[in-house]
């Protein structure tokens, strides 16, 4: 524990840790502290993963703890559940979150239902880089979290800051349930922050007020947090980072909306899927009387993610679009 903290600080002087680096650190610390933790995924060993998240881990922990897999998402996700049944704590990497469609059945069938049916806990974390702005197109830039938001038995986590990337991943690995951990690709090397220390944990299921405000609430997560902060600049707007997008921290949403009476949901998943539908349904039902304006939504249109820059830039919510929506909301 001490060691990992020291090494972490040596590797990454304060303030200079990237979002990606925080994830690497969380994996390294978890591997050091808990024998039951091991990593599974395509090209995560000597190659260090498609995005380099596991760089250096194979060298430190070897073949038995950093396991390169064949291309078989159903297979190795299923194997992770089997190992978890035996008391291990596997952390799976999907090369791109888009490929979670290939492991969908194991996740919603074995992963989601086993504890409820049998009492067998399946502590598996499935990490996956998601989201757009890297010109990934329809198969390398999507936001698949709506497929899992609402599924009983699963937890879905989408960190939006460097500290949370570390603290949420540590908590996810220590959690006894299957956790989908989506890492926004655009944050990997762009977001920088302090290394929070290897004792840092962020509880699952708890949203965070990133910026307090009284006139409106933006409910968002992942890359939306930074976007919301930029869009809200100079406005009296509260930004709530859900962090865990399923189950949703309903209390935090309602608390903020009770204060501000106006709410905008911002997400990179298309339309009203996933978080948007759940949060809007929640505020409509439970905060109806306290709302001074119809809830607003900023999210991409219902299309796959387009590749070409002029298309993707139109598709993705921009600070300007969020700003306009906020101004409309405040002016209502």
């Amino acid at each position, binding site marked *: 524990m001490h060691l990992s903290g020291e090494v972490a600080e040596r590797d990454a002087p304060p303030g200079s840790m990237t979002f990606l680096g925080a994830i690497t650190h969380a994996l390294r610390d978890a591997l050091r502290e808990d024998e039951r933790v*091991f990593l599974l995924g395509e090209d995560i060993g000597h190659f260090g993963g498609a995005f380099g998240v596991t760089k250096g881990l194979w060298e430190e922990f070897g073949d*038995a703890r950093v396991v390169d*897999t*064949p291309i*078989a998402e*159903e*297979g*190795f*996700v*299923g*194997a*992770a*559940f*089997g*190992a*978890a*049944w*035996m*008391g*291990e704590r*596997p952390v799976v990497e999907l090369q791109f979150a888009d490929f979670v469609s290939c492991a969908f*059945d*194991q996740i919603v*069938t*074995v992963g989601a*239902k*086993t*504890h*409820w*049916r*049998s*009492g*067998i*806990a*399946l*502590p598996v974390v499935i990490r996956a880089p998601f989201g757009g702005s890297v010109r990934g197109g329809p198969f390398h830039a999507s936001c698949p979290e709506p497929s899992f938001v609402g599924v*009983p*038995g699963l*937890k879905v986590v989408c960190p939006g800051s460097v500290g949370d990337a570390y603290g949420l991943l540590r908590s996810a690995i220590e*959690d*006894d*349930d299957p956790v989908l951990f989506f890492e926004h690709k655009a944050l990997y090397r762009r977001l920088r922050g302090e290394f929070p220390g290897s004792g840092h944990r962020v*509880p*699952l*299921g*708890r949203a965070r007020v990133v910026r307090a405000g009284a006139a409106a609430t933006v409910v968002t997560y992942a890359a939306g947090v930074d976007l919301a902060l930029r869009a809200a600049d100079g406005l009296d707007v509260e930004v709530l980072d859900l962090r*865990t997008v399923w*189950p949703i921290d309903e209390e935090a949403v309602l608390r903020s909306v009770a204060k501000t009476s106006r709410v905008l949901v911002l997400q990179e998943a298309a339309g009203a899927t996933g978080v948007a539908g759940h949060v809007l349904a929640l505020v409509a039902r439970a905060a109806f009387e306290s709302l001074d304006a119809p809830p607003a939504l900023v999210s991409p249109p219902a299309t796959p993610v387009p590749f070409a820059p002029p298309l993707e830039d139109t598709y993705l919510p921009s600070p300007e679009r969020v700003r306009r929506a906020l101004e409309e909301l405040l002016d209502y």
Partner: protein
Amino acid sequence: MTRLALHRCMLLQRLVEERIVALYRQGRIAGSVYTGYMQEAVAAATGLALAPGDVVAPLNREQACHYARGVTPADVFRNFLGKGDGPTRGRDGNMHFGVPARGVFPLVSMLGDLVPVTVGAALAFKRRGEPRVALTYFGDGASSVGDVHEGLNLAAVWRVPAVFVVQSNQYAYSTPTERQMANTNLSERLTGGWSIPCVRVDGTDALAVYEVARDAVERARAGEGPQALEAVTLRGHGHAGHDAAAYVANELRLRFGDPIERLEARLRLDGLEEGELAALRDDAAAEVAAGLADAEAAPDPNPATLEDGVYATPLP
């Protein structure tokens, strides 16, 4: 010893399933029921080939495997009857249950899903250097599922101590094996396609299956990588309670004998007296009757507990 254990497990499956079919016909069991009638030898022999520390993921046709692991007829009845203190507490029905304390993973309906899960359990054993084995089953029909391929390939390339039992019972629901695959010899296919040694064995011969299964389990345990066996049988009943299986050709029926009668003939050759055999049957029948009585007296599940346990660690 083993022979008597085989006989007991097979007989329990036969008798419990007889009761279950009767209860289903009387409308006292809801949903559907599946039996492993005529496949009891495979289930019993493979279950008994395992050591206590091994783990297993059986399917619908392998009730005897549960008995081999120490699950009781009362447990089975409680699950079929949806009782509140059964293995799934009424949350799932029929053979859709496991018994974690006995190393039995709960059946998952999506065919093929348990193959990767079993491989993962075996991977844990290998990682930790534990001399344990994980075993699972899949049907001739289920062999077409992608997860089976992915799981077998992982097992082979990782050389984990897993054993796969292929239940070649001629049908997947109403569809005969020839309409599911070009080459119906699955042991050839497992060997040729996945490099997993697979021995084909007459699944109505409990002793033969036991020999082959014990060898496979011991080779896997010894670090020789994944092993398989293909047990050739005929699914004795329809696919499920409602299916009369009119589509099964009569000549097929004639080709497969009753595995329990076959084992009993062997026990007689071993010197077991008719009276002793009758006593074994009486014991099993008594255990089944007591199990059913137990289960019938068990409480229904409490609807107020429905949402408990969705998560191992509920969020605040």
